[in-house]
């Protein structure tokens, strides 16, 4: 398959892994931010090719994993209302709320539908004028432009039975939180290529400078990840701390201006609470006052339930790179994909799910 097989070529991977091994002279710890990269690392066994002195940590880049329990409860409450059709990406359906998931809510009679794009949810709203279609808008900067476009079009076309339950979050504040933690162990980052396809690389410059940390924007295939690691290690060994772009076939420094404009039109930066991590200032997107009429929390006057995460679940530590999934006492015993304690065990980008699926002994 073109544009995929080239980046999984065994011979090239072995050569690059060898170059990486030669370049490491000290102990380094690098975090891959995106859950898609985590899955590629575990699935292809990339970590087994790395030199002993280079340790990988898995980061918080799994949008499903960081969506607060409270918001999942709100989505379920909305879905149970007879007039509501709740549209969600497939990943979200198995994620446990405080009592059940959207999947079990569907079995109890809720109208929950999987969509591939927010624009599909908007189309559904026009096809079902008697119903209230709510899109559960989850994701990092990568999915924000299509969410924004759906609301923008809804307002333009006067589709009043469409609204959003918003949980969009941003990558740079999460990196700040990890770097500011007193238990900081991260020497360098692989930044998520797809996020930077939209936002560009400039946002990471102040973080690299201020925290003296190399950040390499990286793709998702084995060769991408190894090359990204090689670039981070070279910076570390040479004492540099810069933003570099490994994923140049998709990312340009300025990002996608059109996508940024539509995000800017519809959303503003707000504080958001991250599941397992807590509230982070200026870490998410919320609808601007002009679009407040499309905010489902406002339209349906949803109350905060104040529920807490399951105490046994340590997904917050996993998301911050402070606990490896296999070191969690509940992993594979009291926490499995069939009976998850937290979202990291069921999301297709969750670190616990990656280890359960590919590594369980």
């Amino acid at each position, binding site marked *: 398959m073109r544009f995929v097989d080239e980046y999984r*070529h065994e011979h090239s991977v072995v050569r690059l892994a060898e170059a990486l091994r030669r370049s490491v002279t000290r102990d380094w710890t690098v975090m891959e931010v995106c859950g898609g990269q985590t899955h590629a690392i575990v699935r*292809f*066994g990339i970590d087994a090719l790395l030199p002993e002195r280079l340790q990988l940590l898995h980061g918080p880049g799994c949008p499903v994993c960081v969506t607060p329990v409270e918001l999942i409860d709100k989505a379920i409450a909305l879905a149970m209302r007879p007039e509501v059709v709740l549209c969600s990406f497939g990943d979200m359906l198995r994620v446990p709320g405080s009592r059940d998931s959207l999947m079990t809510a569907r079995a109890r009679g809720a109208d929950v539908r999987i969509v591939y794009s927010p624009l599909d949810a908007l189309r559904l709203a026009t096809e079902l004028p008697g119903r209230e279609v709510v899109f559960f808008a989850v994701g990092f900067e990568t999915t924000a432009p299509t969410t924004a476009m759906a609301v923008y079009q809804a307002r333009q076309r006067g589709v009043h039975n469409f609204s959003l339950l918003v949980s969009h979050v941003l990558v740079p504040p999460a990196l700040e939180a990890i770097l500011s933690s007193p238990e900081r162990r991260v020497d360098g980052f692989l930044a998520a290529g797809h996020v930077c396809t939209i936002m560009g690389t400039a946002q990471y410059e102040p973080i690299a400078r201020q925290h003296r940390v190399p950040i390499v924007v990286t793709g998702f295939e*084995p060769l991408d990840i190894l090359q990204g690691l090689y670039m981070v290690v070279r910076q570390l060994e040479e004492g540099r701390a810069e933003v570099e772009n490994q994923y140049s076939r998709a990312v340009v420094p300025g990002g996608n201006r059109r996508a940024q404009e539509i995000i800017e039109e519809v959303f503003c930066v707000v504080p958001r609470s991250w599941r397992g991590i807590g509230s982070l200032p200026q870490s998410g997107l919320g609808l601007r006052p002009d679009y407040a009429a499309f905010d489902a929390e406002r339209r349906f006057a949803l109350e905060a339930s104040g529920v807490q995460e399951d105490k046994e679940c340590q997904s917050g530590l996993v998301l911050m790179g402070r606990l490896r999934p296999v070191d969690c006492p509940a992993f594979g015993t009291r926490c499995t994909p069939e009976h998850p304690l937290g979202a990291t065990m069921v999301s297709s980008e969750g670190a616990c799910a990656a280890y359960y699926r*590919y590594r369980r002994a």
Partner: protein
Amino acid sequence: MELPLLCPLPAVEPTQILLTHGGGGRLMHRLIERVFAPAFASPHGETHHDGALLPPGGAARLAFTTDAYVVRPLFFPGGDIGRLAVCGTVNDLAMCGARPLYLSAAFILEEGLPLQTLEQVVGSMRQAAHEAGVEIVTGDTKVVERGRGDGLYITTAGIGLVEHGLHVAPASIRAGDAVLVSGDLGRHGVAVLAVREGLDLECPIQSDCAPLAEPVRRLLAAGLQVHCLRDLTRGGLAAALVELAEASGLSIAIDGAAVPLREEVRGACEILGLDPLQLACEGRFLCVLPEEETVRALALLGPEAAHIGRVHASTPPQVTLRGPLGAWRIVEMPSGEQLPRIC
């Protein structure tokens, strides 16, 4: 003033299924006469009897199986619920090492189903039965109210004969056995998903839905010491391998590069975030047999078949796969249906 007479039977032949079609009355008999009897005519089937009387199988052992079919949409590229209902049961019999002979078919029809749809489905059943060399000899029809069914559900049961002395079952699997797959994987799963979700794939993918009685017959007729057969249905290759490992108490090592996948299936999986090993098939099977018979078995199965792995003893029993970079990973039993990812 003249009052119109209310009549339960429409004067003209209805073009949709009515509740009355399931009532056991004249309309039901007309449905049997018009749709089912001509399609499934058999010397052993008695259209107007409660069951079929079948000739004895002699010294052979009998294999018996049943399966229910619910699929949305009813029609998909490469097949429909009717073809599926015949192939599925034929394949379950074939996997027991049996020669499938007779099928029963029970239909649950939803009020309002266009008669033309039913006729089309029954036509595919007839075609699939012909391909598989089986007869549909008995059946049943029920009609449920509109909104209580997805148009059409089918349950088929089947009887076959085991005419050899082999015990084709997971318990016969031995360490050192070769694991073969009869063709490329995942086309049924992608074809159904594409139609169901309205995905506009650049190259339309046809379901692999097909009866497996003939390839199995060829393997057995050649005298190969087949240890186990397993068709790949829901859960795909991953589920079938894990089931075999658990049932036999032995481990299976798979070479990822040897697993046959078409480019269009790989592409769809990359885009949607699906694991091709977990995609449903409806016309593919695993064959486990002694390593030294691999070459002969592959020749009998045809050019699409592949030798994908080997059975070995290890504790606990597990399925492992060698990836493109040489690293081994476990293959896990799928956890429910696969859900497309966010980005």
